[in-house]
């Protein structure tokens, strides 16, 4: 029996008159690579936003390792162990790659301004640890040679990889990837698939949003499908691929129905 890491219970998200999510139930098991797919506007990024505390759901529960996420401040959610990347790359462009990643690694340091002013032993220790972790993660994502370069000057693929490194630096249990393969060519997608597997093998759990079906089929253990804010399928990739409701959501009703 796999352990449930993240659970969304009856999540409804309304913005004024628009219902973005309608009684959505989702869960992610520890150690799996789960995927969230659906046509554009189905509410996938909204799910990420609800899970990370960007939006407060209109109703419903979000539980992470049996703790409620709803109502917590965003940085607290990250501390709990959820990290994410973004559909449109949101790096700290004016900072170097290393600085980007170390900012994420800082989340587990206890010392702050006072420690920095006085140079306390703990502050120095944590600083060294954070920098080392930063370099390790850059190396892990194949970005060590970019450490001193500004985020905004990196090539596109490296920027996407840097975002992942930064998220990993916060040492999460659950990693949310929002369209990590967007703009990648086939070779890069293959490399990305391998990287995501490597991340899972290192002990992280991954939930990703993606549009590239072959990538999804290749690496996911389980696929959930959203359409117009509702979940319409949640099963192994092969099953979901052949589900008529899913096909209809993406392609419209079959031609002979008219």
């Amino acid at each position, binding site marked *: 029996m796999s352990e449930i890491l993240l659970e969304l219970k009856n999540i409804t998200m309304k913005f004024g008159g628009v219902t973005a999510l309608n009684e959505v139930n989702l869960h992610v098991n520890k150690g799996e690579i789960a995927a969230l797919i659906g046509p554009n506007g189905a509410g996938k990024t909204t799910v990420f936003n609800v899970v990370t505390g960007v939006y407060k759901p209109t109703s419903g529960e979000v539980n992470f390792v049996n703790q409620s996420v709803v109502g917590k401040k965003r940085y607290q959610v990250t501390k709990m162990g959820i990290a994410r990347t973004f559909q449109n790359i949101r790096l700290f462009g004016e900072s170097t790659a290393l600085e980007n990643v170390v*900012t994420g690694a800082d989340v587990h340091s206890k010392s702050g301004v006072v420690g920095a002013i006085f140079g306390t032993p703990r502050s120095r220790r944590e600083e060294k640890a954070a920098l080392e972790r930063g370099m390790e993660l850059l*190396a892990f994502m194949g970005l060590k040679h970019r450490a001193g*370069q500004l985020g905004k000057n990196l090539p596109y693929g490296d920027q996407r990889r840097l975002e992942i490194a930064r998220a990993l630096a916060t040492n999460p249990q659950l990693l949310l990837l929002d369209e990590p393969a967007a703009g990648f060519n086939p070779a890069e997608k293959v490399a990305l698939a391998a990287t995501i597997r490597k991340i899972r093998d*290192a002990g992280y759990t991954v939930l990703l949003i993606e549009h590239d079906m072959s990538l999804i089929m290749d690496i996911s253990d389980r696929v959930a499908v959203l359409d117009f804010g509702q979940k319409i399928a949640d099963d192994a990739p092969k099953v979901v691929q052949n589900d008529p409701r899913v096909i209809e959501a993406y392609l419209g009703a079959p031609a002979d129905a008219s």
Partner: protein
Amino acid sequence: MADKKFRYNLRDHAAEYWERSPKWRRVSLSISFIAFFYALPFLNNPLINTPGSDFQSVLFYPVGMYVLMAIGLNIVVGKSGLLDLGYVAFFAIGAYTMAILGTHTSLNFWEILPIGIALSMVSGVLLGTPTLRLRGDYLAIVTLGFGEIVRIVAVNIEAIGGPRGIAGIPTPPDVFKAKFTILDPKPYYWVLLTFTLLIIWMVRRIAARRPGRAWDAIRQDDDVAQLMGVNTLKYKVWAFVLGAAVAGAGGVLYASQILSIVPDQFNLNVSILILACVVFGGIGNLWGVILGAALLAFTPERIRFLSQPRILVFGIALVVMMNLRPDGILPKKKREHFDPNWHTVEESGEGSIK
């Protein structure tokens, strides 16, 4: 948007030279640099003499004071990206602390200094905690209001002098034969310089570590910073508090030199002037800000006809700088190469992540 063609970047070249230098060179350069500034009041060169006012006095105020305050405001506006238009309020709190305690109690300057700093910091917390959640433009207006309210309160409360202010503020006690009198600004200048060097040292330390990274993240993308685990409110309040402390200290020293203060000295224009120094020097860039403040404070004293429309010139400078050279006269570091002195991680192989 095509940028201008490659410009000789003074800052990068200076930084590179510094980094390539062995330790002995760095130390001797620093010492000579610092010694130069301590010796500055004795400089008597027609090129820098200020007609109309005493050079040594000008070094203390406005040059030294503006530099100090610009460094303080730089933490708030430059590093953290928080537009504070009421910075003068903290300066006023420091000055009034010196004035009130100096005239009503037997405490001397050195004893009042930490009190003034503490009061400014507390004000920073009180103002910051509710308002730093607000978005940039709203924060600007609210801090503007705070600055004005402090002034209005000072004008309207007779107990702290009302519109006539407070006079008869005592000078600091002698330090190693150096007398603090209104006739000789040099000891004041040296105290200010020492304090400024201390602040510079402190700011550079903090900026290189976690708080600096947090502020950079907040400035660039507050929402994402939070999602990366940064407690943005806490660090924003800290930036505010540190900036307030610097201004408060400056205020205490200022009051003990000028010996009488009136509320109208602490008006919006001062906040704007300090902001102009930060902007002119290059938002976020410590050395740029120092250079910018020194230039902006010194030039109207040197070129007298600029002195009257000084504020007009500053205002125009703000618009021009933002439109033509938003990075300031010494833009932030653009270095691409990695610091070669940093050796902690092995060069070979893939790292692990656990």
